[in-house]
């Protein structure tokens, strides 16, 4: 019987073991919507494919005292239909359910979107703005790290060879919080983001921003958290001046490239525009108790 080149482990441990034992190149499969395209184009020819979709821990959404733990292989379509999650994190769910078509949504997962390492991945800026945490398992055991620590550059992550992203934890939400994600695509659907911007903020009773995080997609080798942009919003009620300060910080942080989807000048300019719009939506959602 030829060397096994496809396995569907039932537990995280079995998956880690299979990866550790593998002699040739390996590829993890969660939704498969990126891996299958790479296989088809011949860009990757892994000796072993490890399909994670049958591992219970990687599927589904659990809430733990206000925080949500999302299985890394959970299809985005499932997240879109999770009422409590959509109410608590409208921005994250917007980003997750923008990925590809309804057909792609039926398979694509946050884990795949993150670990594929595309700088333009839609869900990553929203997860970073949300302060989400990656739960990772591997030969050295369980560890956690902020989402922004996972991407290492186009197509690369900081995960060790036999490590698996098990889940993503969205922290408990303080009251009067709201997040939003916007992206620029030439069409209305089916495109990779030319620019993506996510804003997550919390306001006090008077609507003054007490905390804010801003993250961008497709303007650098990885998704970017822009602390100066978040800081520019804190203490304001999103007046025009605060928005402009935030947009300036966003544009200063951009290090995009010219490619078939957009130019440096365009991405930098529009990153500021989208961040401003996302901030207003997040603020509106926060002031309405986060239900908007």
């Amino acid at each position, binding site marked *: 019987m030829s060397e096994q080149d496809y396995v569907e482990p039932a537990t995280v441990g079995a998956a880690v073991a299979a990866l550790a034992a593998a002699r040739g190149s390996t590829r993890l499969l969660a939704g498969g919507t990126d891996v299958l395209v790479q296989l088809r*184009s*011949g860009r990757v020819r892994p000796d072993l494919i490890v399909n994670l979709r049958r591992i219970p821990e990687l599927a589904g959404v659990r809430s733990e005292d206000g925080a949500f733990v999302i299985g890394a292989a959970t299809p985005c379509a499932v997240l879109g239909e999770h009422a409590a999650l959509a109410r608590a994190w409208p921005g994250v769910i917007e980003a997750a359910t923008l990925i590809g078509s309804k057909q792609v949504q039926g398979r694509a997962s946050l884990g795949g979107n993150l670990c594929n390492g595309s700088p333009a991945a839609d869900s990553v800026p929203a997860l970073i703005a949300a302060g989400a945490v990656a739960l990772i398992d591997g030969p050295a055991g369980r560890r956690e790290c902020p989402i922004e620590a996972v991407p290492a550059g186009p197509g690369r992550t900081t995960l060790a060879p036999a490590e698996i992203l098990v889940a993503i934890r969205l922290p408990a939400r303080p009251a009067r919080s709201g997040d939003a994600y916007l992206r*620029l695509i*030439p*069409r*209305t*659907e*089916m*495109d*990779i983001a*030319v620019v993506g911007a996510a804003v997550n903020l919390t306001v006090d009773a008077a609507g003054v921003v007490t905390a804010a995080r801003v993250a961008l997609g497709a303007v650098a080798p990885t998704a970017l958290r822009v602390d100066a942009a978040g800081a520019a919003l804190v203490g304001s009620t999103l007046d025009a001046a605060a928005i402009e300060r935030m947009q300036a910080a966003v544009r200063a942080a951009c290090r995009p490239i010219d*490619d*078939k*989807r*957009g*130019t440096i*000048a*365009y991405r930098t*300019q*529009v990153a500021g*525009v*989208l961040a401003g719009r996302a901030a207003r939506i997040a603020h509106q959602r926060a002031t309405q108790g986060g239900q908007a």
Partner: protein
Amino acid sequence: MNDATHAANATGLKVVGQRPIRPDGADKVTGRAVFGADVHLPGMLIGRVKRSPHAHARILRIDTSAARALPGVKAVVTSDDFPRVGSEALEQGEGSATLVDVADNCLARGKVLYAGHAVAAVAAVSSEIAERALDLITVEYEVLPHVIDVEAAMAPDAPLLNERLFTAGVTPRPTTPSNIAQKTVVARGDVAKGFAAAEVVHEGRYVTVPVHQGYIEPHACVAWAGADGQHQIWCSSQGHFAVRAMCAKVLGLELRDIRVYPAEIGGGFGGKTTVYLEPVALALSRQCGRPVRMVMSREEVFLASGPTSGGVVEVRLGAMKDGTIVAAEVTLKFQAGAFPGSPVGAGSMAALACYAIEHAVVTGYDVVCNRPKVAAYRAPGAPIAAFGVESAIDELAVILGMDPIDLRIRNAVKPGMKAVYGASFREIAFVETLQAIQAHPQYRAPLGPNQGRGVAAGFWFNIGGESSAAVHVDEDGGATVITSNPDIGGSRASMAMMAAETLGLPIERVRATIADTTAIGFSALTGGSRVTFATGMAVVQAAQRVVQDLKRRAALTWECEADQVEWRDGAAYCTDASKEVAPLSLRDLASRSARTGGPISAEVSLNAQGAGPGFGVHVCDVEVDPETGRTTVLRYTAAQDVGRAIHPAYVEGQLQGGVAQGIGWALNEEYVYDAKGVLQNPGFLDYRMPVASDLPMIDTILIESAPNPRHPYGAKGVGEVPIVPPLAAVANAVQRATGVRMRALPISPPRLLAALDGEG
């Protein structure tokens, strides 16, 4: 929604003008319809093509020995397996391709002329083995400098694709080779005198980039060589007689030895009027005797199958203050891709065809460059020319302070006038089509901020040509219509309807089928908006012959004279009062056909003349996001002079499909090349065609006030006109919405934002 003026009902027609369900529909909605890649034969091999990674290179050596030795590989071919052929012209719906170019485009000989150009092909027992075999083929190239931009390719110092190419249409005949394959001139009157008299002169330079037809079905075929030299091919194409002819010529075979079966075709739009895979698959099959299936990947379709030209359109218009255009000078520079044959000739003739301009000259250049060989794309050449002319006319309207439709009506061609390309118009309804848009609610609907409305017109010749059709009557009084024109847009329905109308039968009793090359007479391909006109004419004439035969048989039965028999509503009536006889229905006559001469059927072959040209006028509302440069199409209405709509739903479908392709062409579709001339977006992700959520409903107005007298039911070609106006309609709408005139396509967000910020 669709306020089609149904002249059909006014003339007592019972089937033509209705909206029956197409006879072949069930197979297509249940997944049973067989397209090219669905054909499966016992012992079938998989064929794959090795393609050039370079945009321009000499082929020094091809070593296929390792590939031939790989277990599971049954055949390997290169251009050495094709006979050397001459440069006779080939009928491809466009007629300007030559045999040697078609052959060299199927398998490169001596040089590769674009990244993706086929160099060799293998057939193996599985696609996995075929792919491995491709890796084992080594090709030694001498890479040459390449050129893609049309004006760069025209420059004297540009890299030459073909050292033996001299510009045709220039006297005296040039002595130095050039990438300019041909120069054409269409002229009338005295342009200098015209411009001297003009009170206002407006000039503009407009640029379009190459776009692809975008059919969702990749090219596919199965070829099976016979041990006795008689071969079979199953393929999705716009004309399997054309496929047969090209395969025979490329491989040096006789037409009678190649039988081509029509699979269903998953869209063509002109792009499946040539051959890429069929001769290669047949060559592979002849080496091993087994059926070989070849299906292009989507990447291959973009890399190696015919897009239309990218072009430069320079327009200069001279007009009087009252809006009369007295002079026009247009220059068209079109990319032909690797081999000569861009649609610059047709584009030159269509450019000013809508307008009665006394002094006009249109100069066209057909320019080869290191891109896939151009193929026809729906009214080939006209959308590019119209983008320039209709944009310039819109700018002229602004300069003159005239309503853009009034300006067009003032200059519109009317019946009896002579077109710039020479022929005079007979039954046309261009002015009525313009007025229909002007009267449409959308033309006066209020617009919000950052919104704008654009108008544009379009013309196409439409062609006739050779067609064959047969009508067979069954013993139970039903009928079957047989033609050989692949049904892309519902033509089986219109063929069955025209036969039913002529026979006086309800549509439910008429079936329509598409026959292979041995089962019906020759027909030119499906394209050029010709099928309903030309093949429809053959269908009606065949049905008329059946009716004459039925009347003869009734006369025989009643023992009266043939001219004492009338045929109405599917039955024969005797006009000789002395004979009290009941009418004889088709069923009655068919069930006793043996006694009156045998089976009832007729086949007609003809060369249809007098195809009526079509005119379209579109209005488009857009909204532009000033901060991101994104354009959204809010509302769209297309009116068209259609002669008479045989099946209105499928005519509306032609308008709606052409509009959607035109909008994609205007807003987001383009090829992106890297510095080495390699395509960067060979896929539907980054070659952005409109998706369902990008578009509004597309309203249509079918103008039926000028039926074509040369067609039994007044039909004109309708398939190609709809793609001509949208490019300028969108650009003109964007100008009204933003004040910025975009003269280059596509009007993508980055380009529009740059223009809005003044860097445009």
